[in-house]
């Protein structure tokens, strides 16, 4: 589904602040894979997502999504086949527009000059009801009135309302309180497995990283240093994961949040 070959990215090249954020990274993602990604601070997890979704162009290498070379495709064009959620729940929806208007924008049905159809409204209502947050009765309210958890759930729904070829989740529950995070994570699992979506998820919670999905990769200094799936992954514990990190990177894991949320 997604084939990343030898991509590299250096920020601020030629200055004292030059940073090699992605170092000749390659990754093959199969159709229907749900990969969890963990790694230390500054390992390049978000940078990898930015490269895939086109926030910047890589210095070298090639990215192919479902047979289409997207290496130099502008971000908004890639966004048609890539859904993305950020840590900041405010980032994925327009606060001054109603829930219905945000969903209509995400669904993008019809031509540029068509407005929301009755069938779409009905579909939005049914999908919102699945979130179990009472949002289906608040469709005309501006999104700015929703809580962070509600907004993140709505963003998740917006990103998957047209099943994307690839869903990128960048610590999308990290800014939520534990109970809400749990709920959004549950929804994520439902939506991803229900729609058989191909998904990459960055998380700082190693337990989650092992429980969710079918494959886990660990990143360090812009490279994939550990990649586990299948039976090997089933037998893995958080302690093993920490040990793996130490042996693969030659240092102890220094992601504070990661260690605190075990």
């Amino acid at each position, binding site marked *: 589904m997604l084939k990343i070959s030898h991509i590299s990215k250096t920020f601020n090249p030629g200055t004292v602040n030059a940073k090699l954020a992605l170092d000749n990274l390659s990754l093959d993602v199969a159709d229907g894979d749900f990969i969890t990604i963990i790694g230390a601070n500054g390992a390049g997890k978000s940078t990898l997502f930015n490269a895939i*979704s086109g*926030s910047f162009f890589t210095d070298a290498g090639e990215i192919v999504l479902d047979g289409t070379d997207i290496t130099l495709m*502008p*971000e*908004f*064009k890639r*966004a*048609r086949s890539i859904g*993305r959620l*950020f840590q900041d729940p*405010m*980032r*994925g*929806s*327009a*606060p*001054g*527009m109603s829930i219905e*208007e*945000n969903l*209509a*924008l*995400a669904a*993008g*049905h*019809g*031509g*540029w*000059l*068509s*407005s*929301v159809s009755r069938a779409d409204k009905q579909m939005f209502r049914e999908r919102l009801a699945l979130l179990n947050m009472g949002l289906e009765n608040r469709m005309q309210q501006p999104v700015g009135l929703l809580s962070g958890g509600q907004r993140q759930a709505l963003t998740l729904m917006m990103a998957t309302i047209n099943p994307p070829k690839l869903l990128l989740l960048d610590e999308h529950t990290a800014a939520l309180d534990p109970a809400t995070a749990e709920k959004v994570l549950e929804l994520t699992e439902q939506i991803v497995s229900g729609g058989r979506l191909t998904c990459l998820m960055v998380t700082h919670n190693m337990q989650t990283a092992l429980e969710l999905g079918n494959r886990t990769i660990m990143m360090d200094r812009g490279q994939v240093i550990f990649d586990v799936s299948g039976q090997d992954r089933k037998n893995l514990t958080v302690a093993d994961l920490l040990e793996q990190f130490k042996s693969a990177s030659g240092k102890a894991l220094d992601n504070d949040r990661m260690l605190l949320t075990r």
Partner: protein
Amino acid sequence: MSFDSILSLIQTALELGLISSLTVLALFLSYSMLNVCDLSTDGCFTLGATVGAVVAIGGHPYLAIPAAMTAGVASGFITALLQTKMGIDSLLAGIIVNTALYSVNIAVMGNSSLLNMNKTDTVFTIMKDVLDGTAAADQYRVIVAVIAVVAVIVFLSLFLRTRLGLAIRATGNNPDMVRSSSINPVFTTIIGLCISNSFTALSGCLLAQSQRSVNIDIGSGMVTIALASLLIGNAFLGKGRIPVRAAGAVLGAFVFRIVYTIALRFNMPAFMLKFVSSVIVIIAISGPYLKSQIPLFKRRLEHRPGRRQTNA
């Protein structure tokens, strides 16, 4: 003051308010929806006035309207192109286009800074002839302006509900979201500014034709006046659905003119118009900010070092 003169004051405020409210509606789209402060408004207003006047003088009173609006679209397109595709800051792009339009406007008027339309057929004279002999005969200016304003409000209300309209609103409301979505912000900004500038030009065209002359200064200060009207309107009808907010913009333009006309009655010289509009914009924009600073200001007063009370 006699009843008649009050009535005529309201009449003038209504005419000018309605015609300039088209510019306010343009800013409603560019400033409130797209979150772009379009400083080419002054020049574009004049552009609409000059192009409309030249075409009307050429004997095409109806064609004058679409011609002026097309000129506005072209101007908006260039302003948008500068800020989306050429890396020029959006405020600077507006100022640059505004400066260039000064030359363009003189050129449109045939190397002159004044055109007279005393004997020219315009949509206003046509409406006057149509209404001749009816009870509404004196109101021909207002009627033309109302038609234009209603048409623009209806257009905006319908347009901002379409997928393109929603995309334009999202571009202004949450640029972060749009950047990582399938909406191309370049496209939405260009469309938004083209449409808003066509309304600005329409506004200039109608003002020139209703006062039967156009000079190069007709649009100067228009952006501030329109912004003041928009913010006044926001105070009355700032919340709610799009048609309500658009109507608020028109109401704001009318209230601004009424206040200004009353001020003139109290011997405020006419040249103070632009000063007053600047003050209104300053108050309307800085007001909420200053208000939010009051608690901190109070704390500073109470918390001056050396003044702490002790129980000694």
